[in-house]
């Protein structure tokens, strides 16, 4: 039944996207706000600290929140415009109901809520409780996410609940769970500054998590080497010691080949592998066969070198050099390679963290 109620152009005219610009002189009241609220940016999972300036129940500007630990007042191009989300001409100010041929019409809450509830009840009595599904958003607060989960299970009694993370970061979560039993990055961001080699795999951090870059620069200032795996020379890759522009979708061949090199050169932390991990033998066997295939075939073939062997020789040389410069043997590599592997195709892995730097 649910084709669009009217053509797309009419809907866009009515509901946007329209563009919100601040007045040239800034919004009135910006210099004399009623209150300054310490909260966070809404535009990505970094959730940078920001102070919103409020006048007359409207957000009229922002200030950096320099005391907040991980972004320390820094904001990305999205963050500095985040306050324009408020007071937007496209904002829904009342419930709407669909009207065939016309689009949408204003309705009152009583109608909107009773119609929704009666449709839920009709569909569930006709087809069973699972016929009504709920889709949630990762940008919600913890409280709202919890509430949505409980609402689906307890009020709707449906098994069909999902969220937009399914299209975003669920693979990193699944990999973390398989490797460590917990879906969370292993370290806080300030730990990055203590890394000696940082390997960034398939994540365009300087555009997607821009305020994270600062921690990478901190590590670089202290001499950390940077390896970036990405089919594009992304902004962060332009600063790397080694960029591996592998063919999309061939990541596991590269990581298998790296594991092969670690085994071949015995760059392994045997104490860690023997006492704190399981499955190494199987992983090494599976990955070595992969690596052999990958070395002889151009699956990972990079546009620069065309030869994975050359790339890996450079990788190995970089590792050895880094370890020599730091005055420690390269045997700790393997511990951190578990982190790299667990992250699958996304996020970053910091390699060779210094022992227990204190952080708050």
């Amino acid at each position, binding site marked *: 039944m649910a084709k669009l109620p009217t053509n797309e152009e009419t809907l866009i005219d009515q509901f946007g996207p329209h563009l919100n610009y601040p007045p040239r002189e800034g919004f009135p009241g910006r210099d004399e706000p009623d209150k300054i609220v*310490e909260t966070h940016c809404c535009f990505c999972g970094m959730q940078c600290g920001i102070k919103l300036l409020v006048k007359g129940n409207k957000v009229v500007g922002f200030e950096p929140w320099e005391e907040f630990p991980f972004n320390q007042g820094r904001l990305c191009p999205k963050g500095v415009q985040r306050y324009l*989300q408020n007071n937007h001409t496209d904002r829904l100010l009342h419930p709407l109901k669909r009207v065939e041929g016309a689009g949408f019409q204003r309705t009152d809450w009583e109608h909107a809520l009773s119609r929704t509830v009666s449709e839920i009840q009709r569909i569930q009595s006709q087809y069973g409780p699972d016929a009504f599904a709920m889709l949630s958003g990762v940008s919600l607060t913890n409280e709202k996410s919890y509430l949505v989960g409980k609402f689906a299970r307890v009020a709707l009694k449906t098994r069909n609940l999902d969220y937009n993370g399914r299209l975003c970061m669920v693979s990193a979560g699944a990999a973390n769970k398989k490797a460590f039993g917990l879906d969370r990055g292993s370290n806080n961001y300030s730990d990055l500054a203590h890394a000696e080699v940082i390997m960034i795999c398939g994540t365009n951090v300087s555009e997607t998590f821009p305020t994270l870059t600062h921690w990478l620069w901190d590590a670089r200032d202290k001499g950390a080497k940077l390896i970036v795996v990405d089919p594009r020379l992304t902004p962060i890759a332009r600063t790397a010691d080694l960029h591996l522009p592998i063919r999309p979708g061939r990541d596991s061949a590269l990581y*298998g080949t790296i594991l092969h090199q670690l085994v071949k050169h015995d760059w392994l932390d045997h104490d860690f592998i023997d006492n704190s991990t399981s499955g190494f033998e199987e992983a090494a066997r599976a990955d070595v066969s992969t690596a052999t295939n990958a070395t002889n075939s151009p699956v990972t073939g990079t546009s620069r070198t065309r030869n994975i062997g050359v790339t890996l020789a450079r990788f190995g040389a970089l590792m050895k050099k880094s370890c020599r410069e730091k005055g420690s043997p390269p045997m700790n590599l393997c511990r951190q390679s578990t982190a790299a592997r667990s992250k699958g195709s996304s996020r970053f892995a910091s390699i060779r963290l210094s022992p227990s730097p204190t952080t708050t």
Partner: protein
Amino acid sequence: MIREALEKLEFYCAIDFFLNETAHYADIALAGSLHEEEEGTVTTAEGRVTRIRQAVTPPGEARTDTEILLELARRLGAEKYFSFGGAEDIFNELRVASKGGTADYFGITYEKIEKNMGVFWPCPSLDHPGTPRLWEDRKFKTADGKAHFNAVSYRDPGEVTDADYPVILTTGRVVSQYLSGTQTRRIGRLVDQYPEPLLEIHPKLAAQYGITDRELVRVVSRRASAEFPAQLVETIREDTVFVPYHWAGKHSINQLTSGHLDPVSKIPEFKVSAVRLEPLRKQSPPPKQNSLQPSGGSPGHPSPKPPPIHELARIPKGPNETT
């Protein structure tokens, strides 16, 4: 695929603050709340639980998302399980519900978050400081307490290139936009930075097709096709093209991407598809820049209303419009 699913729905209720492109299919849209219109917490990508503070209340007749869900629960006869006085009440139930689990929030309170500028989970007890760095004791949360190497054998992606679809398509983001763009495609200066999706292509691959900068190119996959202006860049592999995914409708690159699912996480394999390129032998006009346009008006009532985005990034329909 999503559009077909939406078209089959008998009833669709959207709770949102903008009527986004998905909500165009809704039967009822309930005006919900923005990030800054409710109290709460978020867990950042770092694992730090932080406080979101209410800066303003929802405008007009809009309500908070929490109010809406509680009212729906009441009307569905589940009121006794949803008697929350506010966000902190909900958080306190979450704390108890997570106690003893791997994602243990029991020791995290609003007061502690505010005092410490965030608390890292897991945090199992009230006197626990939280866990900024995991695994220092080398005790992992797996069944045997050890970190587990998972054997991975190489296999090809779900879709590989062939004679009909010889180029790899990958997708991603630009710095000025976020996810589907519902929020960021409504902010003027973010749109000005990168107004429309471009097809990044290496000059050597472009030369094979005679494609020039800003020439319109039809990108065709086994599922759909869409047209994008070419952007010749040396920062991409010669066998791969890239289009960012923040746009809707005919500008959505995800119409083309593969539906193969990861066997464990069920995430679609968005980052690898096989496509062919069909240059259309006409230039796409440069998108209009609006940043100098005075907007006037007061917050909430900007006037005049800025032009809708589909006019700003309009693709020419015929040869007369291509100059």
